[in-house]
């Protein structure tokens, strides 16, 4: 992994960044404050990994993921969802193999670190 994009809310941004730094310092992390700004950046550059908070998107997260994947077919995605996420939509995302990891808030560092280790080896 060389390029990681991070689109999460302010409340978890420091902890996710810290976990990434602990995991490996050999990559570049770019943070986006909104899904719109992330989507614009994804049109002009290739990325290896996206850690995406589903609540940063104003529309269906499944549709948002589909557009991002269209632009970056090899992109690995770890999706963070709220505990009250739309169950049917999450199941469709898993069935469609749209993400390589799924994390429910509030999460511990343990599970995010394990995903980073797993995805980093792929």
């Amino acid at each position, binding site marked *: 992994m060389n390029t990681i994009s991070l689109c999460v809310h302010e409340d978890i941004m420091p902890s996710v960044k810290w976990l990434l730094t602990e995991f490996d310092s050999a990559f570049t992390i770019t943070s986006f404050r909104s899904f719109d700004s992330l989507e614009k950046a994804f049109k002009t550059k290739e990325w290896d990994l996206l850690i995406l908070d589903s609540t940063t998107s104003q529309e269906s997260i499944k549709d948002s993921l589909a557009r991002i994947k269209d632009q970056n077919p090899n992109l690995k995605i770890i999706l963070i969802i*709220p*505990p*009250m*996420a739309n*169950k049917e939509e*999450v*199941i469709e995302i*898993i*069935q469609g193999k749209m993400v*390589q*990891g*799924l*994390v*429910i*808030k*509030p*999460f*511990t560092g*343990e*599970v995010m670190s*394990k*995903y980073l280790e*797993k995805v980093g080896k*792929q």
Partner: protein
Amino acid sequence: MNSPDNEPSASVITWQDEMSVGVSEFDTHHKRIIALINKLQSSVARDDDGSITRDVLTEVSNYTLYHFFAEEDLMDKYGYPGAEAHKKEHLELTSKTLQLMNDAFRNRINIGGAVLDFLIRWLKQHIMITDKQYSAFFTGKGVS
């Protein structure tokens, strides 16, 4: 809710060697899930407002989802013939887990006892029957 007759003991489930699926990584995952289920049991017993239980339930759910992704990656890598049925069971369990999360966080339902029952039943069924079915396949592929 637990009745006095089925009050949970100190450890509701313990790892036993017969639970091994022959893949050390997944045995480690199962042991961790068992530890988290026992942690959930402890939190149910001492949690007044349900907040600790909700946090531990999220921890169990997250680790279980991670385990499912890891198992499915290995199945895809080696072309496990039972992958489709196994993934279907994962999806059903994920759906149930997401429903439990909704109940716990949206409706603030006291989910402790019901969740414990579900998790213990699932763990035993999934490890001892479903996961055991891939043991010979992965061992034959040199995965240990």
